């Protein structure tokens, strides 16, 4: 055998990756996602303008159609400009940054909080379990937007506050899944084996049960990121999300909305396309992850 590891020495995650790459659509989604993420990461280097620096904006360039030339900077507005004279391309790339930060950040924090709550519920059982799960039921039974609007109306606008709101809304999904999965795993024989070896309970939960609960949580995480981005866009569109000085994709769409009827479609259209691309990419990856990690669908 060569220096490379043989097929059957690879870890489970390696096999999952191999399975994942089997669907062309999923690979397409992964590539699209990579482009979106890279664009967001490299924003200052790939854009001609910093859309948050008001000094770089020129009101005279407001609402120029795609392909127009800037009056001072000497570059082309490939996607046109918005009502403040922002280069839309730059604004979209920077907006992606905010949307992704909010989406990924809130989904991650919610995942940690939710998983913790779920494990505690499964571990403790009894009254603690019942109490926590009823709280989850309560949260999940409220219309999401309404809850978000209420929370935001109370805490106020801002990137941090939007993330806080999203975390408050989303942890329940993780909690329910983590608890269910942990209860299933806790009944497996390997847990009995660990108990029989005198391994402490918290260690069994974190070291043995938790790793086996990760696959479904990962899937939920991927899909919840997309959900969080959508929700943030909706909230910003409704004017309760991020501040106008640091527009996210939703806010950009909202800003262009009023000009749609005057045929200046691009101000809303291109941010919308970017939002669509990001969400489709994440959903494609998430769906494939779900299929690959679900033993029932495995060949």
């Amino acid at each position, binding site marked *: 055998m060569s220096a490379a590891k043989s097929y*059957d*020495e690879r870890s*489970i995650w390696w096999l999952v990756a191999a399975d994942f790459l089997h669907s062309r659509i999923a690979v397409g989604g992964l590539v699209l996602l990579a482009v979106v993420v890279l664009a967001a990461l490299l924003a200052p280097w790939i854009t001609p303008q910093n859309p948050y620096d008001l000094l770089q904006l020129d009101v005279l360039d407001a609402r120029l159609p795609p392909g127009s030339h800037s009056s001072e900077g000497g570059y082309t507005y490939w996607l046109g400009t918005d009502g403040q004279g922002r280069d839309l391309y730059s604004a979209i790339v920077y907006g992606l940054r905010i949307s992704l930060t909010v989406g990924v950040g809130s989904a991650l924090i919610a995942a940690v909080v939710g998983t913790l709550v779920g494990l505690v519920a499964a571990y403790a059982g009894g009254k603690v379990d019942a109490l926590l799960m009823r709280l989850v039921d309560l949260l999940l039974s409220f219309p999401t937007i309404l809850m978000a609007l209420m929370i935001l109306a109370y805490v106020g606008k801002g990137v941090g506050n939007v993330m806080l709101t999203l975390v408050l809304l989303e942890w329940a999904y993780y909690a329910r899944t983590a608890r269910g999965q942990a209860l299933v795993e806790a009944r497996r*024989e390997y847990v*009995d*084996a660990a108990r*029989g070896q*005198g*391994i402490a309970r918290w*260690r069994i939960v974190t070291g043995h049960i938790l790793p086996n609960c990760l696959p479904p949580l990962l899937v939920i995480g991927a899909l919840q990121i997309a959900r969080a981005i959508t929700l943030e866009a909706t909230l910003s569109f409704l004017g309760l999300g991020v501040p106008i000085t640091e527009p996210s994709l939703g806010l950009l769409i909202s800003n262009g909305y009023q000009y749609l009827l005057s045929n200046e479609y691009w101000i809303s259209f291109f941010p919308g396309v970017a939002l669509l691309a990001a969400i489709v990419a994440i959903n494609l990856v998430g769906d494939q992850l779900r299929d690959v990690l679900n033993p029932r669908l495995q060949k």
Partner: protein
Amino acid sequence: MSAVPVQDLEVPTLEVRNLQTRFHTRAGVLPVVDGVSFTLGRGKVLGLVGESGSGKSVTGFSIMGLVDPPGKVEGGQVLFQGRELTQLPATERRELRGNRIAMIFQDPMATLNPVLRVDTQMIEAVKAHQRVSTEEARRHARDTLGRMGIPSPEERLRAYPHQLSGGMRQRVAIAIAMLHGPDLIIADEPTTALDVTIQAQILSEVQKLVRETGTSLIWISHDLSVVASLADEIAVMYAGRIVEHGTVADVLDHPQHPYTRGLIDSLPSANARGARLRQIQGMTPSLLDMPVGCAFAPRCPHADAACEQRPGVSRPRHDAPWHEVRCFHPQRDTLVPAVSAALPATARVPAQEQDVPLIALRQVAQRFGATLPPGAVGRTLRSIGLSKPPVVTHAVDGVDLSVRPGEVVGLVGESGCGKSTLGRIAAGLLTPTEGEVIVGGKPATSLSGEEQLAARLRIQMVFQDPYASLNPRLRVSRIVGEAALLHGLTDASGQDDYVCAQLRRAGLDPALRHRYPHQFSGGQRQRIGIARALAVQPSMLVCDEAVAALDVSIQAQILNLFMDLRDQLGLAYLFISHDLGVIEHLCDRVVVMYLGRVVESAPVAELFARPAHPYTQALLDEIPSIDARRTTFSAIRGEIPSPIAPPSGCHFHPRCPKAMPRCRAEVPQLRGIAVRHATACHLYEATYDTN
């Protein structure tokens, strides 16, 4: 009607010629069935025997035309009453399936639709091939159930599958297969999941049906002994090929192929009690990486260069041309009698009566069941009829059991008898709801935290399912080494060596310690489980059906490992099994359980020579054995009652041939009837009361 000639005896029911079925997987092409040929006459029973992965089931599926992608029948012919099936259009094949050719599967719960009543499913099956009214179809269904010997068929017809017991479900599945009086039935391990007494009943019923109707039967099984009692012919498969095919007497009494001999030799019943089993080395080769020559050559004691260069050809035995063997070096001599060939049993000092038991259970009981809602609220709810009184199941009901250092105690019983629950109590995984657990002479409840940990480590468990009992996300090195490191049996620097030593003791290559469990075979996984148990330096292992999931040749290897560990480390065992052959071979003392209670307990020789309790006697009668080629089964009647509502008095009385009125009313106490021999049966009270 098609052009099938009028059936005459010259045309065999089934002729399979050079059948090739391959599976195209991502890892490569697997030749799962690789040139299988055989002929099956009308009314004959062929036992198709092989270990997992030998291709026996896929052979059955290929004949049925039920191979799903990525599998594909890629060569050979299947002639059913002279008619070639593999090239037949799908519609014509479907017309044959269920009508002329029927199949019975291992898991009847998966074959029967859980949301439809039995009659709906049977009527549909009748109407698929006959233009009859629903009433006629239903009558036909009821008659068929009746012919299967199913009591009160009308009631069964109205039931949903989950309301029937496992044995009854399988009978219904067999009845569905028999609906159209097929000419050929392919049965894929239909009794493997059933209890011994139920298996015996079904075997006798199937045998009767086959004789009456002239149906040909292919009985696929991993178990030579089951096939021995049922079949006319046996074909042994190994790695996709039939290596030996002949009559039952040919194959079992004069096995020519070294693999067949190995299989027979490795049965516990073919070896002297307590001695190491003769085993086949190694394991089945991967179909991805098949040897060029004979597939068995790498494991064969007689293999030479010729075997490794080209595959063996099936050749008739010189003195019995119907007995075909695919081997260059067929073994002509008769089977060596077991006793003379077996290694002498190591001189073990039997456990002494006065030794302090490692563990003693005193009148332990384990109740499961709804206890909610408790207290005053529950009483109120119950009084106004909103809550039913809790259903309490006595999984274990007042059992005494002790295991002394170095002693091997066998725990036998059928499903629902509470043997696994008792094992988990012994291993400290369950705290009994009643009774006392005494560990090393001290009540478990009086132990300090530290002593409790030590007591827990002293008794380790080896589980039945080698897949579920290993954490799939952890590497073997951590699975085996974690507890030892945590409890200070080794330190971080010595852990790697420590793990290697444990793996070596369990017969595994330490180089594999960085792999994950899914990269191992079933037998290897069981060794990992054993290494994990050994790593905390126990003095006793509780083995819960620890070899039940393994292939015969692998089972022998693991049993030998258990015996080696017993001799080298002086380990004691509580060996839980439904397999009396294994129990007889391994154990010093046997405890028989029925529905939560101990019915008999005796030293192994005594129990097998003079079984006292009618249940024990029945169990011993029903062990399938390759020596007992029975044509009749003295099956105990009836089913195992549900432990939720066990019969009154002696739980066994509804099935007991010697039941007296007293048995229905009074629970028999366990009492001594000879030295170290105790039984709970009213039959023996009068005789031995004076002792």
